[in-house]
């Protein structure tokens, strides 16, 4: 597979496709521009449309290392950037002889040898031949304080550690930020990024995705499962299935040896696509109609 920085939008598209990521031209354009302008790419979309996957595939396209920072509530600098290895520092200082100069010792223990490097520091300070891809996943789970810090980091790709000084990236990493929109991320951060909204794919594209990523499903099955999911998405549900669910579903059915769908099979495997009891109940009543429609698709 071709590796290296793509030089045209078509090339981005082709390389993604080569790696079985079926994106639209809009996404390829945003990725291409983010690379060219050296700006972070902010990707939003419903759960399971392939936001995280896009970053992973891009690392492979560029031949770069993927550094992933999974956000969560309460994430702070000690988890995201760096932390001193305190037990080792204490041990070191205890093992020192009486007469040794304390100032020298302090310089020793606050050196990079005693530094625990977390993903963000790693993304900025490394010897990778190709700048890494930094995936900041589900930023909406972190809090405002952390967002404010990221804003600073993303504007000049540098971090200051009081005891060591400022560390600046030799070359900016390719940054992908994802959000599920469980809360509104601050405009100031988004302004620094290029933006792309990943929508649910249409039927043809979803069939293509199933064929690429769940090749164990027969062609007819792929189309019918995609059709079913398209039908479910038009229903009034608490949580409509994403592409990830389509793939799970296609794989489950294929594992059962199915080459076509029918009401019984759909009933038995509906849990692959729907995650709420109310949704399951609502859909169960309508399985025959859904199946009929999907088989006609």
């Amino acid at each position: 597979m071709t590796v290296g920085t793509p030089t045209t939008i078509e090339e981005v598209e082709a390389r993604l496709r080569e790696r079985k990521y079926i994106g639209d031209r809009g996404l390829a354009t945003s990725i291409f521009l983010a690379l060219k302008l050296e700006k972070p790419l902010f990707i939003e979309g419903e759960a399971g449309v392939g936001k995280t996957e896009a970053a992973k595939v891009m690392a492979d396209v560029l031949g770069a290392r993927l550094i992933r920072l999974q956000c969560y509530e309460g994430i702070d600098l000690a988890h995201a950037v760096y932390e001193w290895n305190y037990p080792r520092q204490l041990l070191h200082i205890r093992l020192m002889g009486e007469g040794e100069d304390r100032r020298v010792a302090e310089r020793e223990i606050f050196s990079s040898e005693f530094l625990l490097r977390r993903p963000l520091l790693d993304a900025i300070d490394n010897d990778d031949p190709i700048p890494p891809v930094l995936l900041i996943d589900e930023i909406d789970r972190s809090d405002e304080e952390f967002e404010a810090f990221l804003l600073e980091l993303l504007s000049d790709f540098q971090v200051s550690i009081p005891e060591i000084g400022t560390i600046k990236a030799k070359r900016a990493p390719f940054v992908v930020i994802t959000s599920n929109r469980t809360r509104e991320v601050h405009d100031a951060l988004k302004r620094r990024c290029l933006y792309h909204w990943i929508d649910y794919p249409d039927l043809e594209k979803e069939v293509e995705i199933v064929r690429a990523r769940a090749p164990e499903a027969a062609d007819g099955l792929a189309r019918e499962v995609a059709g079913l999911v398209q039908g479910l998405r038009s229903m009034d549900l608490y949580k409509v299935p994403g592409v990830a669910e389509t793939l799970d579903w296609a794989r489950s059915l294929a594992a059962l040896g199915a080459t076509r769908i029918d009401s019984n099979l759909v009933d038995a495997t509906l849990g692959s696509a729907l995650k709420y009891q109310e949704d399951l109940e609502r859909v169960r009543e309508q399985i025959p109609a859904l199946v009929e429609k999907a088989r006609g698709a």
Partner: protein
Amino acid sequence: MPEGPDLLPRLGAFARLLHDAGLEAGPRRLTDATRALVYIDLKQQIDFRNALRSVFVSRKEDLPTFEAAFDIFWAPPDPRAAAGVLPGRSRALPMSPERAKAWAIALGLSSSQMNREQEPTAVPISSSGYSAEELLRHKDFEQMTWQETEQVRRLLEQAPWRVAERKTRRLRAARAGRIDLRRSARHAIRSSGELMRLFHRRPRIRRRPLVLICDVSGSMERYSRLLMIFSHAIARREDVEAFVFSTRLTRITRLLRYRDLDRCLESVSKGVHDFSGGTRIGEALADFNRHWARRVLGHGAVVIIVSDGWDRGDPARLTAELIHLRRSAHRLIWLNPLLGSEGYQPLTRGMAAALPHVDDFLAAHNLKALEDLGRLLAGLGTRAGSR
């Protein structure tokens, strides 16, 4: 399509159009757009559009506005579009009629091509046959005397609106609590590796987010204005999400941000199209559960529904949605202005269906009642699931 020397000024004008339509299109984005276009084959209209979208849009909600603005500004005139039949594209831009007119003149279009939102036909007709009740008129807020408003506003603003707090997962220094290894070790290093003193950390306390869902249908008419004043008073705190509904749900969080109450009321009145229409609480809550709950109910939110329960929808639907809503909220409070009136029994179909599924059922007919609510909010515990 744009030509070489003409491109930059036109791009600037396009940014101004986006700005007037409510997008953030400042100098930084304009610079980015200019840089981006260097790498794009301008003859490919689709790439040109994608590139500008990726620079100028940063919220899903702004996508339709961007597409409409792009069509109006860059696309060659299409007779189908003028007739409003271009599939999948709405040409309406959210702008005042004067602005839209000015842009129409500047771009050589008829003003109806700029802004169809002003025409009543642009309003979606609901399929349930209930649309006759959806009275799409702009409610005049001038009915309450200015003096009364001022009094109520002053009292509401003075009320100490404090919603209960919750523990977050972010830790801060404290006298007691978990041991803060970082600070303790720091201190120990200074004293030759001897752990002389232990420092502690504790979860930070934050106020719970508050979500208001207010009924502004016809039967609530007498209270709508007061409710808006009430919402505005609470919304001066950071974490309030506010919605109003009658036959459909509208988010008014952004509109409540205006400091000036009158300006805020005016914008809500303009932004909400079905003030004083009929009520379908179940549908409104369904809409909330599907489209907003995951976005605004994180972090242990308290949800307040304000309605008299005069529901013309299906009570079973209302029950189902309330059960779901209650599960995702820290606390579900129902305020009913009628509860204060003498001899009131919650016998309306909607209210009877709702009662078993809310945590608190309170009055909201006068200031005293609102103060009681204030006390309840302040008293909710910091722990999860203190129901």
